[in-house]
C-alpha cells in the first residue's frame, strides 16, 4: 500500500501504469520523462489532483503536515506542463490545483510579520483536504478487500424456473404517480420557456399528412410537400416530419445528381401487394 493504488488482486505486486515497447513503468521517472503513450495511461491512473499530490508527497516520504510547498509545486507544475505540452486533455481540476499551489507558494514568500504569524499557515486548507481525501482513499482500499458476492462469496442459486409461479403484476404507489406528474410538469416548464409547447402543430400529425400525400404515388417532389402559405414553424414541422419518416424507414429520399431535384417515395406503398 506504499503508493496507495488498489490492485484488483491484493497479492499482486505493484501494477505497472503502462507498458511501452515491452518495458513496464511502475513509477514516475525521476526526470519526469514518460513516453506520451504511457503518460496518458499514467494520468488515467490518478483520481484527480489530490490523488496526484498525495502520490508525489508519499513517494518522497514527506510529512504531509510539513509539505515543502515550493518543491511540490514545482514537481506538480512540471508534470502538468508536460501533459499540456503533449496536448493531453487536462481536467480543469488539475489546473485549479496548480493555481492553488502557486497561491500558497506566493503567500509563503511574504515576509513574516507578527500579524501574519497569527494567521493560519497558508498550507492549512490544502493539508486539511489532503488528509481528508486520504482517509477515504484508505478506507476505500479496505472496502475493496472486504469479501464480496461473486468474487469471494458465492450465494446459493437454486433454480426454480421449473415451478409454475403465477405471474404477478407490478404495484404502483400513489406517491410515484404524483411524482411522475411533477416531473412531467417540470419538463414541460422547461420546454415552455423555449416556446415549444405553444406550438400547435405536431410532427407526428404532419408525418401522417406527408404519408397521405405520398400514398399511391411513385415519387413526389420534395419541395411540393411544403405548404408555403404556412408560417416558418409549419415548414420546420414538415421538415422534421420528413426526417422522422426517414428515420423510421417509412420513406425513401432520392436525389439523382448533385443539386438536382429531390424526390420522395413512400416505402409502404411499394411493398403493398
Amino acid at each position, binding site marked *: 500500500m506504499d503508493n496507495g493504488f488498489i490492485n484488483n488482486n491484493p497479492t499482486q505486486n505493484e501494477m505497472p501504469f503502462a507498458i511501452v515497447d515491452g518495458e513496464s513503468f511502475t513509477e514516475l521517472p525521476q526526470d519526469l520523462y514518460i513516453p506520451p503513450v504511457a503518460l496518458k495511461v499514467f494520468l488515467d491512473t490518478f483520481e484527480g489532483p489530490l490523488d496526484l499530490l498525495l502520490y508525489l508527497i508519499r513517494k518522497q516520504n514527506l510529512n504531509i503536515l510539513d509539505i515543502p510547498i515550493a518543491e511540490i509545486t514545482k514537481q506538480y507544475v512540471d508534470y502538468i506542463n508536460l501533459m499540456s505540452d503533449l496536448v493531453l486533455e487536462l481536467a480543469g481540476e488539475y489546473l485549479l490545483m496548480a493555481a492553488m499551489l502557486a497561491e500558497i507558494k506566493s503567500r509563503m514568500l511574504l515576509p513574516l510579520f507578527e500579524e501574519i504569524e497569527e494567521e493560519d499557515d497558508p498550507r492549512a486548507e490544502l493539508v486539511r483536504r489532503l488528509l481528508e481525501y486520504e482517509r477515504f482513499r484508505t478506507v476505500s482500499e479496505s472496502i475493496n478487500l472486504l469479501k464480496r458476492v461473486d468474487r469471494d462469496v*458465492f*450465494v*446459493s*442459486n*437454486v*433454480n*426454480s*424456473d*421449473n*415451478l*409454475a*409461479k*403465477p405471474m*404477478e*403484476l*407490478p*404495484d*404502483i404507489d*400513489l*406517491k*410515484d*404517480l*404524483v*411524482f*411522475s*406528474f*411533477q*416531473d*412531467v*410538469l417540470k*419538463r*414541460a416548464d422547461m*420546454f415552455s420557456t423555449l416556446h*415549444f*409547447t405553444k406550438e400547435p402543430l*405536431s410532427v*407526428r*400529425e404532419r408525418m*401522417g399528412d406527408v404519408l397521405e400525400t405520398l400514398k399511391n404515388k411513385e415519387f413526389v417532389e420534395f419541395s411540393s410537400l411544403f405548404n408555403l402559405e404556412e408560417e416558418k414553424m409549419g415548414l420546420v414541422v414538415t421538415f422534421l416530419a420528413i426526417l422522422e419518416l426517414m428515420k423510421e424507414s417509412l420513406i425513401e429520399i432520392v436525389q439523382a445528381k448533385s443539386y438536382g431535384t429531390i424526390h420522395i417515395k413512400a416505402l409502404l406503398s411499394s411493398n403493398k401487394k
Partner: protein
Amino acid sequence: MNKKALKNIIEGILLSSFEPISADKLYKVLSKHNQTTKADILNAIDELKDDYSLKEIEIINVASGYRIQAKNTLTDYLSIIFSERIPRYSRALLETLSIITYRQPVTRGDIESIRGVTVSTSIMKTLTDRNWVRIIGYREVPGKPAMFATTPEFLDYFGLESLSQLPELPQIKEPKNLDLALDETTDSKKTTIPPESIN
C-alpha cells in the same frame, strides 16, 4: 479424497450455480486439487439424490449437466417471495398514467405533446389491460383520436373515492409535503382538495 468430503463439495458447487454443471466440468475443477475419478463424482451425485429424497430440493439431469432445483411443493411459498420483486413499471408508463389521471380526458397526441416523446402502444395496452385506463370517446377533430380516462378500478386500486381526493399538485414541491397531502387524502376524507386541473 474421502467420499463424504467429495459429496459436500459437489453439493456446494451445484447449489451455487443457477446453470447446470456437467460431470466433466465437475471433474475438471475437482481433479485440479484432489485425487478423484469421474466414477467417484457420479457416485457422489447419486448419493446426493438419495439424500434429497426427503428434502424440498432435487437434483435433475438436463442436457448440459446436473442442476439442483426446487421441488413443486415449494411453489406456493416461492410464488409469494418472487411476486414481491416483480419488475417495476417504467418511468414512461408512470408518466403516461399520471398525465391521463390529471389531464383526463386526453388523446395520445395530448400525452405526446406533454411528454415530448411518442407514447408506446405497449404502454397504452398495459394500462388498458390492467383496467386502469379506458377509452371514453373520440375527439371531434380530424382522425377522431380516442380520448382516454381513468376507470373506477383505478380509484379502487389507490383506495380513493373520487379523483378530487388526489393530491393537489402546486402545493407539492417537497417529498415532505407530498406525504402530508397523501395523509390528508387517505386519512381524513373530509378534507377534499379540489385539484384545479381536474374538472
